[in-house]
């Protein structure tokens, strides 16, 4: 159980958050025009780094912010927490 330092609420317990998967590329605009192999790569080959990983967390039972969390998967150290860039 980790503690995440929400930029809006301060350090809060993991139980307040919802893990929303690894940070990945945005859904391609023209997914229907993608080649099959590119689509399968997009769908089934997420990055799974040993070390610094980018994750998406939702402060669901808190302020509701969507956060980008950079976390070391070896040490569990949380390196950076920022609002998910909505662009």
């Amino acid at each position, binding site marked *: *159980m*980790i*503690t995440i330092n929400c930029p809006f609420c301060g350090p809060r*317990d993991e*139980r307040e958050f*919802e893990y*929303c998967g690894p940070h990945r590329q*945005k*859904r391609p605009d*023209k*997914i*229907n025009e*993608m080649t*099959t192999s590119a*689509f*399968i790569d997009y*769908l089934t080959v997420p990055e799974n780094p040993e070390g610094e990983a980018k994750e*998406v967390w*939702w402060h*669901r039972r808190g302020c509701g912010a*969507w956060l980008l969390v950079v976390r070391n998967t070896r*040490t*569990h150290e*949380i390196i950076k927490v920022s609002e*998910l860039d*909505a*662009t």
Partner: protein
Amino acid sequence: MPHKYRLPQGGKIDRQKPIKFTFNGVTIEGCQGDTIASALLANGIRITGRSFKYHRPRGIVTAGIEEPGTFVEVMGEGRSTTVPATMVHVQPEMQVKSINCWPNPKYDLAQLLQVFSPLLPSGFYYKTFFQPEWKVFEPFIRKMAGLAKIPQDDTPLQSYDSTDTHCEFLIVGGGISGIIATVMTAQTGKRVIWVDNLQNQHGGFPIASADKIILERWLQALRDQLKGFANVRILKQALAWGYREQNLVLVNQNREEVNDVLLWRIRARQVLLANGCTERGLVFPDNDRPGIMLASGVMKYCQHYAVTPGERIILYTNNNSIRILAETLMGQGKEISAIIDTREDTGQDYRGLPPTIKILTGYEITKVIGWNSVRGLIASSLSGDDSIRLSCDLLAVSGGWNPNLQLWMQSGGAYAFSPETATFVPTTSLQEVIALGMCAGYFNPKENLCETRKRVSELIENLGLKSESLELPQLNMSEKPYRIQSYWQPSSTNIGSKSFVDILNDVTLEDIKLALREGYDDIELVKRYTTLGMGLDQGKTGNVNATGIVATLSGKPMDDVGLIKYRSPVSPIPFGTVGKPEGKFIKPYRTTPITNWNRKNGAVLYEAGANWKRPGYYLLQNETMAEAINREARAVRNGLAIYDGSPLGTFEIKGRDAAKFLDMIYTNRIGDIPKGTGRYGLMLTEEGFILDDGVCFCMAENWYQVSVSTGNADQVHLHLEKCLRYDFSHLEVSVTNLTLQWMNATVCGPLARDFLQEFSLDIDLSPEKFPFMGIRDGVFNGMPVRIARVSFTGELSFEINVHTRYLKQLWERLISKGNKYGITPIGSETNHVLRVEKGFLSLGHEVDGVVDPIDLGLGWVMSKFKKDYIGKKAVALNRTSHLPRKELVGLVAQNNDIQFPEGAPIVVSKNQSIIEGHVTASVWSEINNRFVALALLNNGRSRISEIVQVRNLTGIEKGEVVAPCFYDPDGKRLRS
């Protein structure tokens, strides 16, 4: 009753307070302060259990949490299952049973297995798992595995609770270094939590009696000093069992005064592990015979419980810590007949001992005499030129000392082999944690004191804090440094004997050799292959020996082999502490405003997804569950019924791009839904699996209301938000969860319209003005309502939504006015029956993460005109293989009395071991007066009217494939 092996004086038991308890039905008398183990030993009871695999007689080996020999079940009041006999204090009238013995430990029928033990070789589990007929072995293995039976009544053994807290310093350990660290950190004024760890309640590294008195007096003074600190919280009777990321330590505290177990989740700035050390055994032939004990156990029974369970005592060792035991036993008037030491060079270690003790240096034990109890042994010189037979009734063994690295390893800390102490010691840490004292490898008491003080003051200084200097006591006898020489395995073994490495799990030296021969050369593979260290004790007394053996046999350095990774919990904990408390406080059950009405009116309440408690059915007097469901079903089909549909997930989607967004979320077209109507739709995941089905209503331009399955509402909410924040962040849309704002009473049945027209309502309910799938806002008897014409039952149905505060009022008005129509409240069981009759989809039944909408006959919901929506490409891609698809069909048994069980496989007629489908739902259909079922079947839609074979528990039954709809296939009634 005089205790045969109790010393006349000393110990921390109260001889004036005898306590009677039963052990396997026999009454035993112990004293106040005894554990089950010490009471049994005092009474001379040797055989206390049977081993798991070979059912060999076993006795008590240690005096603490590391016990591998004896596990018991405590019955009756305060019962517990599968606990070490060394950890439970005797209570009056306590009933104790040793586990894994039948009919009793002395006459064990399963001991016959020893004769057949070649049938149960190492790797048995591995090899068996590859066999197709695992189920044949499973009951047998369960029975033999010998864990206490799961209690039949489900009342919890104790109550459980949990709490969270923070501190600057968390000290784990109640021994010398734990107390020093607590006193020193307490002086910083910061918040300190001290876990007076149960794990330290074992023998510990031996200390000469004279020094022990000085040390205990000094430690008591420190404990007294602690009372003056308000910043220190002391957790007594506690076990730190888990170490997680970011210095989160999990501690279970037994609070006897309130008979509960409290789970502490402690987040600490700095953790100080003073977990102490544990003695390990020596590996030699038949080293598991009752009467062979660890030296630290013998020491603790002598000093603490005033018990020496033998008269002719021999000590066996590879290190000099055993000398203190010899002196302690002699101090109690006991005679030591011999000390056998595997070291050739013992230096001055035994100088000054009386000449009556035979000292054999450079000898090892090659044979143990005695079956149910040790009677003697043969010791042979390592050079091989001499052997000697000695008799004894107690053999105390010391194979050296290991720091308790369990929590350290869980924290991610590194460790290395120290040749001087012949064990693994902590090195660099991964988190903010240090190891202290014996846990850091400083076994000698003097060294322990000095090193602990030094490390703690360095830590405090590095943190920029202050504490007073601490004066250490003068110890006189503990000058001699700890000396040890590795001895991992006997130089030879004779056939017919077993040399145990893991006594609890019956893993022998031969098993490890076999694992290495078969190529499992990694210590973690050796563990899985042999089950070494996988027992309840996690190999606390055996794992380092295992590493030594693997290193010797494979020629690798100790550090390359490493230790088997210790996992949490450090020692078994009750499931209740990790399973229950959160459900009560953090995820409470959800109820609707009429839950109390439901309770008063016979509702049987279930948890029905998303923590909602809702009625399964309503029982009238003298009614069975089936009768109740049939009565409710008849009311829906022929008359008037009412259903509390409040838990249904409801979301409002608003914004300039709302239609665009929903067109991506749903498989069908949303943008052209006319205002005031809804459309049934499916949501898929990008992988093409069905996420949810439901209805999407257009309330006005750029304003939609979406209803989703109760159990899936949280998932769908997450999906919608994620899509919006992430993939479609350019769209201007807001999602609002209105599940708890809109509650509803659903009125259904052919009389529903007539009935509702009796109320004051400003909505025209005629089918022309308010057709199926319409939605209208209005005022119903003064209450603002939103009525939707959706149907989950296949019958004419009005879902009357109101604000939460009006539901009770609405419900009671409908019920009181509906009496003359025979209005019947119905539960979710009846809803299930009715939806199966109609072949409507249920996520929990028909959707299994493999089927796609087309398989379920919902291809029509997949828009062919939309270029893109979530899941479109994946569904198309999945279908390019042209493999047979499992398609939704109806199924009726040829024998009308048969109900196919849900989940029953449909097998191929020519080869009944090949499965071509399964029953997804099966109910008694009151309207059809027969059982009906839904199933997923290979190419099912093209096989209507075919006869298939369904395997149920008793055999094969024939069933006919039909269309997946058993009632009103044209949907005339729900549109009426």
